[in-house]
């Protein structure tokens, strides 16, 4: 059993679902991710913060085996994404920012295609499609062409799509961007319930700090390829702002780290 006190000052009993050691990615002379040490526990909701171009997406791509690290080691669900990308991709869902769909197919056809690519039998796939369309509130619009969908509907369909394969780990890149306040709330509730009811580990990358503060157990802050802070929000607040009570916002902590870096 791994205890992660050295990894961010939190003791979570459980298996490490992501473990990165000295993970580095260079593009030419530019270092996108520098010597990343990170451990994510099963069932956790982790918020991954940082300014644009800090290396967040590159990190996600390395976890998924979509890009090869220059050096360092990473294991996702016990598999090496470089050597066994199949095993990782079968169990990991990735919702990129501004997810794309085949606009000339309807929601159901889009989901069915993804299910087939995951080698889910049609019978099971239909059940899951019905279930998740219901969960994200798109049952009524399921037979409309996705090209006619609004931004919020596309985002919800994206969530349904990554859940079709029933992943154990979910990477969400800006899942609430472009949603109206009501849609944002419902999306956050859904994400939260995934973690609690389905025991899906969530790895969330976002700029919307108040939302991250609402749903994440722990956060990591990445600036210029360095992971400058990691831990539960209260702990970072204690360390950086010297406050104990709830009278802080994640934004204050984030800005403090950002100015120092």
């Amino acid at each position: 059993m791994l205890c992660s006190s050295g990894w961010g000052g939190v003791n979570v009993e459980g298996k490490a679902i992501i473990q990165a050691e000295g993970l580095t990615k260079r593009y030419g002379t530019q270092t996108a991710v520098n010597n990343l040490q990170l451990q994510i526990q099963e069932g956790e909701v982790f918020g991954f913060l940082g300014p644009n171009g800090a290396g967040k997406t590159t990190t996600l791509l390395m976890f998924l085996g979509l890009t090869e690290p220059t050096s360092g080691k990473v294991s996702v669900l016990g598999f090496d994404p470089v050597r066994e990308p199949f095993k990782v991709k079968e169990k990991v869902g990735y919702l990129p920012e501004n997810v794309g769909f085949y606009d000339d197919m309807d929601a159901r056809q889009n989901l069915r295609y993804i299910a087939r690519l995951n080698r889910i039998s049609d019978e099971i796939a239909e059940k899951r499609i019905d279930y998740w369309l219901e969960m994200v509130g798109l049952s009524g619009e399921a037979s409309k062409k996705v090209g006619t969908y609004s931004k919020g509907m596309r985002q919800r369909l994206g969530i349904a799509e990554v859940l079709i394969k029933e992943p154990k780990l979910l990477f969400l890149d800006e899942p609430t961007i472009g949603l109206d306040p009501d849609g944002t709330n419902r999306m956050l509730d859904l994400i939260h319930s995934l973690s609690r009811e389905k025991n899906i580990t969530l790895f969330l990358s976002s700029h919307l700090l108040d939302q991250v503060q609402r749903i994440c157990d722990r956060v990591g802050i990445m600036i210029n390829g360095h992971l400058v802070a990691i831990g539960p929000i209260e702990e970072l607040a204690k360390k950086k702002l010297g406050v104990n009570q709830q009278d802080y916002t994640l934004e204050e902590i984030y800005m403090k780290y950002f100015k120092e870096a």
Partner: protein
Amino acid sequence: MLTIFRKELGDHFNSIRFLLISALIVMVGVIITSMVGMAIQEELKGMAKPTLIFLLLFTSTGKLFSFVQFIGFFGPLLGIFLGFDSINREKVSRTLSKLVSQPIFRDSIINAKFLSGVTIIAITLVATVLLISGMGIRLVGVVPGVEEVWRLVIYIIISLLYISFWLGISILSSVIFRSTATSALASLAIWIFFSFFVGLGASVVADAVAPVSKTASGVDADMLIRHERIQRVISSFSPMVLYSDATTTILDPMRKTTRGLILMGPLERFSMSRFQNPLPLLESIYIVIPHIISIVAITLLCFGICYLIFMRQEIRTI
């Protein structure tokens, strides 16, 4: 891969493009048969027992052009039409990054796209040839023999390879260029260059290297042969030349070589003048084997380059 293949094929069938292609097939079929059919009837009047008339349906130029010429000219457009947006369309709609994060091999994406295009091309070719044959049988009243059928089958295979080469070119440019318009224009430019300018360039280069000067005693024979040779070598860089040489020889059994009259060896010329019989199928195949191998090679090379570039592309740019 089968899933992607089926989806791509379905996309092709559902697209307006396929409707256009089908319309083209019917149109070309009708025009060519009626044009050629009437011409053949004229030509055959008063001839005793001509051989292999059936193939004339495809090679006779009638009033304007023959079917073989038509495919040589516009077949590449069909290939480009089917492939120019295959990869970059998915980049623009951001579905490619989603596809590669599913548990599939990355190469199955490009393989499936290529194969579905080849399938559509095969369907188109077979349909057109059957259409022309069917209408031709009614119009001219001759039935194809076994050998003629075989020649047609080989012809379809060569055409399939030839058009697949252009499909490969257009998929390659769809991998390289992000915008669908750029990729369409780039593949068209390549098509125009290799189909038309190489031929022009060949005669220019041949003129420069081995100018044929007219002397008092006529033309210098050695120089003329050198001139022809250079021109042939350069123009065989054009897939269209390779294709038309190969297919006319396969479909016209009276042709015994792909070379022009000047470059024929003495024995070939001798046999031309002495034996007016059609060549057996196997002999025709022997003559065009180098052409067929060249077409296969450029098609594979083109797809190979396309495959390599696609596999090595950094995922961020997808």
